[in-house]
């Protein structure tokens, strides 16, 4: 509608009606949210065991202690720094590994058969294998070999996460690669581009753009699963919380760690939602 257009009487009436209805819906929603919230609050705080739960999960002093590492306890916040570093490194490595595997799986011809078979076996096994078991196998199995130059448990645990998530990400990348229409490849090859250049300049840019939302989603999952490295021993946020809990017989440190993990995931979740929304809009635009 152009700015100079004067809406007709009937259109003005429609606008007024829609506005009235919107206000009514908003009020109703607010009221029902308040009622449900109140009921939940009364139900939890009115339960017979609430006082016990409150003191063992939501103790303010213990929360501060766990966060700052008072009285010689490991600090959850310091542990979180390890998680953050691991997240960044593991995400980057898993994305690179996933992309590499996906490309290997698309290779054609008998020469590439062993590579293709290996890549396929890898994605099949590591998507099926529980992450906990992979971490145990890597962190405790590999040092058991007593090889020279075996890296630290932290590095091995991180490798377990990379290898597991690489398998998932490889499948996402592969779906993206296969979603690029063959006519795009034909156009690139007809211009004299080699297979490799076609992949690099024509197929991958389109494929990655298309699968960015699911890729980011898997990255969010990776972020929190980085906490499982605590099973292998290094003192990350969760391990620090566990030591605090063992010393104080109070579960508040876990809640603290949990809240920190959620806070850390929020930015990436926000980015994921934004990218997904943008992709959906672009598709709905009919281009």
């Amino acid at each position, binding site marked *: 509608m152009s700015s100079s257009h004067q809406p007709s009487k009937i259109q003005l009436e429609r606008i007024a009606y829609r506005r009235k209805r919107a206000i009514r819906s908003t009020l109703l929603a607010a009221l029902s949210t308040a009622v449900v919230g109140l009921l939940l609050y009364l139900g939890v705080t009115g339960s017979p065991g609430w006082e016990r739960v409150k003191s063992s999960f939501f103790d303010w002093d213990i929360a501060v202690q766990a966060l700052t590492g008072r009285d010689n306890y490991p600090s959850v916040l310091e542990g979180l720094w390890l998680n953050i570093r691991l997240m960044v490194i593991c995400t980057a490595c898993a994305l690179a590994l996933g992309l590499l595997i996906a490309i290997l799986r698309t290779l054609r011809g008998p020469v590439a058969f062993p590579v293709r078979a290996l890549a396929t076996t890898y994605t099949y096994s590591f998507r099926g294998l529980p992450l906990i078991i992979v971490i145990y196998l890597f962190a405790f199995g590999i040092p058991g070999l007593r090889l020279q130059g075996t890296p630290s448990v932290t590095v091995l645990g991180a490798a377990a996460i990379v290898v597991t998530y690489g398998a998932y990400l490889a499948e996402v990348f592969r779906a993206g690669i296969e979603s690029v229409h063959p006519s795009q490849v034909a156009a690139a*090859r*007809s211009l*004299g581009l080699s297979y490799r250049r076609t992949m690099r300049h024509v197929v991958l840019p389109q494929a990655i753009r298309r699968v960015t939302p699911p890729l980011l989603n898997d990255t969010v999952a990776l972020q929190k699963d980085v906490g499982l490295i605590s099973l292998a021993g290094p003192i990350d946020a969760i391990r620090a919380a566990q030591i605090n809990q063992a010393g104080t017989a109070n579960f508040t440190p876990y809640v603290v760690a949990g809240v920190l993990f959620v806070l850390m995931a929020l930015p990436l979740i926000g980015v994921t939602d934004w990218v997904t929304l943008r992709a959906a809009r672009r598709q709905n635009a009919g281009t």
Partner: protein
Amino acid sequence: MLLTCTDIRKEFGANVVLDNLSLDVDEHEVVALIGASGSGKSTLLRCVNLLTEIDDGVITLDGEDITDPRVDPDAVRQKIGLVFQSYNLFPHMTVLDNITLAPVRVHKRPVAAAREQAMEWLSRVGLSDKSGSYPDRLSGGQQQRVAIVRALVNSPRLLLLDEVTSALDPELVGEVLTMIRELKGEGMTMVLATHEMGFARQVADRVAFLDKGRVLEQGPPEQVLGDPVEARTRQFLSRIIEAGRL
């Protein structure tokens, strides 16, 4: 002869698409391939560009057997431009990047020189203001003209056009046909599969009627389109006239 196709055979399963087809094209010659859908026009073009591997026969370009498996297909394709029915521009690249991709990446030309050449072509076809646009912002006719320019900046010896106006609104067909007519004026050798009989008559030096994977009849446009020898050609043309396309 610039291009010779001798006894080309192509089967997809039990379906024989090219049945020992032979066709030669001279330098600076424009050959129009006509025929019903499924007669093998597009497959023949894809075979010449080595996008589809033939099952038998020989194709030569400039006397070189390009169907020899020892030949590097990428090098051959650099000498043959192919324009598709549905344009197949790269949607993630601007018009300018679409055109300069091959010159920069394949022919290793400096980016500035490639861009300059692309801009010259774009202004020739009246699209210089679209150089920074993405393909989805262009009309079908504009996209197809960009696709033709993209093929031309490789300076091909031979240009293959696969029903380049079939996906266009009738009012946009003209701008693409004008461009092809100009290319003919410059001596470009072209093989075009087309349903535009009027255009084939105007621009082609020779019309080849394909039927069931063979060249059933070929000759000057006036003869093939006006006074065909074969009954099957007459039948095809009368159907086209009924459909109001001649």
